[in-house]
């Protein structure tokens, strides 16, 4: 693995302890996690529930701070990157503002940044996530999958240096989810933005990522770090290859809690 200097995201020896009532030493959520993401790389984080994936992502975005260890994004602190709108984020709750239309929700990062709204870019993104015709619709009038597509479009609108996705398709049914994976892959191939994706779905991670980092739970540690060998662009057929199934099986096995006892 390359050194910390060139990495787009560099988490070093990150430990996070949460206070817990009745437990003096608190809960150790993350234990000395080190993780580098190279510029233009797509890394997927897999791990059992409660192993600290979201915590890791939140610390990368500057929403949480490590108890010990360092977090750097492009060599800077997350706060500095956030201040110049360097992050694009899409978390599990889509966080669309119910009083704004699809167009205005996607335009929100421009407004927050105090930048002139680039209507051309917004129209292009709406087309990219296949929501043309829904520009003036409100979130409550969209399906779950459509809302998540708005969420993704909003994450991309300022052309972020780093894209952070926390189970953005977690609430979707399997068919919609696969469809969203295809779209995300297509969008990502066009932009090649450095991306960190948290997911529970092994198939999703294999289909989308250049590298998969598997974590163990309680406390969260990095257990495996494996490259995904499939060439890009990846057609859907990749998911039917024998190699894909082998990797899928071994990852599912690695995720079973008994495997770490």
């Amino acid at each position, binding site marked *: 693995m390359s050194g910390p200097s060139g990495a787009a995201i560099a988490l070093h020896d990150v430990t996070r302890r949460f206070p817990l009532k009745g437990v003096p030493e608190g809960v150790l959520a993350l234990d000395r996690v080190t993780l580098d993401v190279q510029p233009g790389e797509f890394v997927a984080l897999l791990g059992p529930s409660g192993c600290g994936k979201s915590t890791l992502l*939140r610390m990368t*975005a*500057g*929403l949480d701070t490590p108890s010990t260890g360092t977090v750097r994004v492009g060599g800077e602190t997350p706060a500095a990157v*956030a*201040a*110049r*709108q360097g*992050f694009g*984020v899409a*978390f*599990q*709750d*889509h*966080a*669309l*503002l*119910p*009083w704004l239309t699809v167009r205005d929700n996607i335009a*929100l*990062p421009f*407004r*927050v*940044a*105090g930048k002139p709204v680039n209507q051309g870019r917004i129209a292009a993104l709406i087309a990219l996530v296949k929501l043309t015709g829904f520009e003036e619709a409100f979130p409550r009038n969209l399906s779950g999958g459509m809302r998540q597509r708005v969420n993704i479009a909003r994450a991309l609108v300022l052309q972020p240096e780093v894209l952070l996705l926390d189970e953005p398709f977690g609430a979707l049914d399997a068919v919609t989810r696969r469809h969203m994976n295809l779209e995300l892959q297509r969008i990502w191939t066009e932009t090649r933005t450095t991306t960190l994706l948290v997911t529970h779905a092994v198939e999703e991670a294999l289909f989308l990522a250049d590298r998969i980092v598997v974590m163990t739970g309680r406390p969260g540690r990095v257990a495996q770090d494996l490259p995904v060998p499939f060439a890009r662009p990846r057609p859907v057929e990749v998911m039917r290859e024998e190699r894909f199934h082998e990797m899928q099986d071994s990852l599912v096995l690695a995720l079973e809690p008994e495997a770490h006892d």
Partner: protein
Amino acid sequence: MDRLLRPFIRDWWGILLLLLAWQAWVVLSGLNAIVMPRPLDVVADIATNLPVYLPALGISLAAAAFGLVGGFMLGLGLGILTWASTIAAGMLTPVTVLFSSVPVVTLIPILARLFGYGPGTVVAITVIISFFPAFVFSSAGLRALPPGSADLFRVLGASRWRVLTSLALPAAMPNLAVALRIGAAHALLAAMVAEYLMGSSGLGAMFAAAKSELNTERALGASLIVAAISLTLYLLSLRVEHWARARYG
């Protein structure tokens, strides 16, 4: 005709029934008109004495409107202050709760010394009455954010001002509408009570004067007008609330 009448009866049958019962009771029991006039006599008194009623109503309505707007702005302003600063929240919240638990009636002598026995004090009382719901509901509403939106604004490096104007205030709209509904229903009543107790001007003073002259029809006429307008304001602000919920909720 039927299409107009039917929804009217559906929505208002309770009040119609009450008026009918009142009329029937007075007629059947043969009570003296000074003790209890018939509703039709009260309505007739209003209809034939509009030049007496209308100016008084104008004064009371103006006081209520100023008080409602003033109290609402004050409540919202202090609500924003507690949102922006925990120090302000720690200081303001107990003070306002204490203030609101004091019966307004007991404040009248103090306020009257400050603002005089006139419309100034009436407005001050309505401000106090409308202030509390506006403060409580805006404080809560500014914090009732869509899930994940606070994190989103933080990751986007939003300023405090931007969070207030683009997130907290729009999110508070349904709550602010509730505060408006509560305030609108009580503002005119509060103005009238203050006018009544000071005997200054407006419908309240008219009520006080009519009462001392044993002019029961006039006293009930003033009450009827206030009740009808308060109800109308309440229903109108209910509409606003439904809109705010649909648009911002």
